[in-house]
């Protein structure tokens, strides 16, 4: 198996959700090495961590994301791929710390104060992570203060706000204003069922997306802009 083959196999493991040798899923890969073992092997062979990240993991998650967007697979199948990816990432972690590999960027995400809806936000977080971004999830009912506090520690992060209630859209408005006040340069992306592009323009946020794919597209557009 040459290096390219190895990367392809890692890609396949992540795509199909094969975490490690012991996981029973998918049935026809029973007993075979998973993302865990193969990533270790790849590093041992001297394959560059950035190659593993970009050519196997992110590519795999791209494919998975595409299948999901095309309604060919369900969330659990995507979650299982995310798990396989995580198994692989464990081995890459040291290289992230040294800076030898880099994620595309950072996203701080949370559901705004007063709002508890997080299923949508969680999906966005997961898919953005799969697309190669680091995600800091602040959970639900997040105050302006908490966002600001987190931005202080991650000045380069993009901030994502979610709201599902028409009443908490109001909170979104004030939180966006508060953040912009403290950090005029920070990029704010908003979303959630009642949110619209028009509302984004109105409250002065920078990006809006109606689904995770849109969120990823927006985030990636930021990199290319830079």
């Amino acid at each position, binding site marked *: 198996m040459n290096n390219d083959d190895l990367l392809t196999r890692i890609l396949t493991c992540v795509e199909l959700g094969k975490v490690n040798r012991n996981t029973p899923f998918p049935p026809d890969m029973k007993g075979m090495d998973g993302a865990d073992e193969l990533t270790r092997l790849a590093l041992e062979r001297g394959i560059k961590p950035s190659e593993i990240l970009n050519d196997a993991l992110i590519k795999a998650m791209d494919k998975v994301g595409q299948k999901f967007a095309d*309604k060919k697979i369900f969330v659990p199948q995507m979650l299982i791929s995310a798990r396989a990816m995580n198994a692989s990432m464990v081995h890459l972690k040291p290289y992230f710390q040294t800076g030898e590999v880099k994620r595309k960027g950072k996203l701080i995400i949370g559901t705004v104060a*007063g709002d*508890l809806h997080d*299923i949508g936000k969680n999906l966005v977080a997961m898919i953005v992570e799969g697309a190669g971004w680091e995600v800091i999830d602040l959970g639900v009912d997040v105050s302006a203060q908490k966002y600001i506090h987190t931005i202080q520690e991650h000045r380069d992060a993009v901030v994502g706000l979610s709201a599902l209630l*028409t009443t*908490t859209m109001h909170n979104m408005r004030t939180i966006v204003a508060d953040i912009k006040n403290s950090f005029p340069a920070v990029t704010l992306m908003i979303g959630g069922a*009642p949110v619209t592009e028009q*509302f984004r323009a109105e409250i002065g946020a920078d990006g809006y997306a109606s689904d995770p794919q849109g969120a990823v597209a927006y985030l990636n557009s930021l990199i290319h802009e830079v």
Partner: protein
Amino acid sequence: MKYKSLTISEPEKLIFGDAPLPVKTKRGLIIGGGRVYAEVNFTLPPMEVSLKTLPEVRKHYTEITEGILERAIELNSRGLVLELETLLEMTRTPAIGVELVTVMNEICEKYYQKYNLPVEIRLTPNDLREFDRPPQSRTSSYLDSMLELFELGSKAGGNLLSIESTGGKEISDNALMMCDMKRFIFSQSVLGVRDMEFLWPRIVDIARKNRVIAGGDTACGFGNTAMILADRHYIPKIVAAVARVATVPRTLVAVEQGATGPDKDCAYEGIFIKAITGIPISMEGKTSACAHLSPLGNVAAAAADLWSNESVQNIRLLSGMAPVAYYEQLEYDVRLLNEAKRCGERESILLQKLLVNSDIGYDPQALVLAPGNVIRIAGQIIRGKNSIDATVSGCKEAIKIIREAIDSGQLLTDEKELVWMDILESDINSVPTGESEFVEMMLPELGDTFIPSEYGL
């Protein structure tokens, strides 16, 4: 299970407008007494809710109530229900919620006096306990404001009390996303049931003390979350259909604890509750497309005693304000159902058949709501030794029904759904019947996502 037999055991009797235990309200609605009424739901447009904005909020609720009741007179309505489902701030500061009930009730009373139009307010405080993560279902101070709103709101004119309680939600969301039916059943039949057993005696008490009606609960946050996820193709429809059934024993607890109906809208599981207990129910279908799209537009009306639009914002459509437009749509739906009732049993049953059959071939979630299937499933549920067993038995029957329909070609199904039948089944089969066994089994994998003591565990 407290209910050992079905109150309604023939599909033809599980029909709109008639419930074995009709509920008579103060202003004279007889819900489930031979006639279907509209239940109108509405909410604010995007805006802040606080004591500061209360005047504006009140203006919205005044305008909505006036608008709907004026239209009701125009349409010769025989009565209706208005729901006030509160938003966060209206419950956290019960004075806001109470104020809105008061304002609405004054208008209802005015129309009652002037036109003899019977209108009742259903008051549904929202469940705040989820604001703690994990929730402290029993010890949270949020509980106090919820109960205070129930108490003061029923004095102010909230004559029907309901809630969409969320016990078990900290487990169920992820369970649904992962399509992990075992966990979902745990969230419903252990945590949900226990939380309902804790909460509902308190609500029933308040209702009795204030001589108002304890309506019922809905597993909206469970069954409808599943439905919405399936609608977006995030999870299989089959999973959502079985999840719906898994909510039944949980929602049943409200009635076991003294709720008398009308069960709350949002609860598509209401039809099961009606079959088992005989209480009247509120259902929502096509005319709730303002609030969520669904595969249940017509079938949902099969056994409705109240017919609801779930929720629409007070925004302007070309005809006027959206709550009025939606009320009108509900009223015409209801007119049709009532005309069938006026004609007699044959006509009612035929209309029901049309409503049911027009939907059930397209989606397993519709299929399990067909009265015949409801009676099969409910029949299994009541045989359960306990809520867990009941839930498991119901789910198994649902899967059987879905399989039969797929096999006979009566149900269109997407290829990619089919693999989930087996996964679901083996998941369900792995659930032990005993509660302590089940808890023991789940605790390790659930970690600190929930607080056992908050469920009396």
